[in-house]
């Protein structure tokens, strides 16, 4: 009871995203925005690729996007997380950022280019300190 509320959520890999601290809060994908020219990027960047300014701030990227393209992976790299078949996709966010991600929580055969998708977190496992280790991907928007 008390120990369940004390469980922290940590990302599977630091630097890519911040999982929601609780079920009532929102997590986000870590992105960057150039203060000089306004271009956005996935992850923290030190130098803007458009104008080369170093005035970059960390931002939370949009949580909804559109599938730009995808494939169904039937084979995976040993030691990686997802079990085939799974969908690898490029998701386009409104900030004009394209993100390589997975489309989960659906039948891979049902995925289509142009589909609206939303950010989705899930627990992968618990670590030695009892924290919940989280991953993120996208899933079709439930209408």
């Amino acid at each position, binding site marked *: 009871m008390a120990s369940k509320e004390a469980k922290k959520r940590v990302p599977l890999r630091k630097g890519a995203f911040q999982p929601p601290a609780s079920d009532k809060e929102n997590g986000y994908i870590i992105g960057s925005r150039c203060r000089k020219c306004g271009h956005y990027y996935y992850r923290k960047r030190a130098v803007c690729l458009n104008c080369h300014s170093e005035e970059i701030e960390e931002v939370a990227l949009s949580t909804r996007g559109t599938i730009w393209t995808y494939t169904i992976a039937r084979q995976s790299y040993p030691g990686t997380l997802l079990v085939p078949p799974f969908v690898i996709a490029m998701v386009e966010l409104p900030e004009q950022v394209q993100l390589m991600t*997975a489309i989960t929580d659906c039948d891979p055969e049902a995925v289509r280019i142009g589909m609206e998708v939303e950010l989705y977190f899930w627990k992968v496992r618990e670590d030695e300190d009892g924290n919940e280790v989280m991953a993120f991907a996208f899933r079709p928007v439930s209408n």
Partner: protein
Amino acid sequence: MAEKEVAILGVGLHKFGRQLGKSCEHMGREAGLMALKDNKVDFKDVQIGFCGHCNQPLGTGLHTFSELGMTGIPITNVEVACASSSRGVILGADLIAAGAYDMCMVIGVEKMPRGMVPGLVGDISDASYEHILGLVVMPGTYSMMANRHSHLYGTKREHFAQSAVKAHRNGSLNPLATYQEVYTLEEIMNARMIADPITVYMCSANCDGASAVILCSKEKAKQYTAKPVLLVGWAQGTPIYHQGDPALSEGPTDLLAQKAYEMADVGPEDIDVAQIHDAFSPGEIFSAEKLGFCPEGEGGPFIWEGNTEINGKIPINTDGGLVSCGHPIGATGGRMITELTWQLRGQAGPRQVENPKVALLQNAGLGGMNVMIFKI
């Protein structure tokens, strides 16, 4: 000072194959000796060397060249993933054109284990989130580009597979290829799927092999042969940032092709034979468009209708390409140059295209892309 013209004086290959059990030094030596003997070049006349490889130990360039001689020349290892040895030749060409060196040798070597391509990720603790999740699978980006291409242009799975049908058939005419099996369209489409729409027979395989290219100034080449193959245009580059671009391509193919065409003073319609990067079969469809062999979006039908067969309008990958030859990463660029040289000289045997005069190479990797144009 006017730029010097560049000639390809000698070429050689060690057979490509799965786990041949030979060292890189040994395979490189055999390819190198073949290239030296091609036009009777003495190793002592080579002034500078480059060794293309990706996953071999420190010192591989020195040890490989030392099989041929130890003359004190500068030897530099070049790594641009799949485009390593063609990049080595471009580096040599720039030096020769500038008059800095007159005779350069490029040896490409690779030994590869079975399974996934090594070296994609460094220390696993540095692995990206995408890699940990499992998104970084080799045909992944080509598959995604293929599906986008189908979405935009209606390209069919059969179109992508047809490139592999041709690759395997051409490979069966090439004793130096890893695979010499002919497969039907059905066999290729029904083979084990790796990432839709790419099946295992539409993928290049890890293998071992070596290639060697000797280049020099045109005036020097004329001391050895009356009609040398000339390298008349080249361009090298990396992907360019564009806002909103998914950045799935290895480089700006069309821009590099344009630069190379301008330098060579030819257009796509002048190309008689080509080598393009088919790490996975859809690459042929994309490159045929980007290189200007057919209009944008029409690559599928273009390949499907046989235009890139040996007796077609623009023969592509007459030796079987990466898909049938296999892909010892560091050696692939040199293999492309070797086949194009043999084609221009009329030495391609059963794969010979009728009277080619101008050839084009497009070689891409995780790290950059090269486009080169040759004439005889």
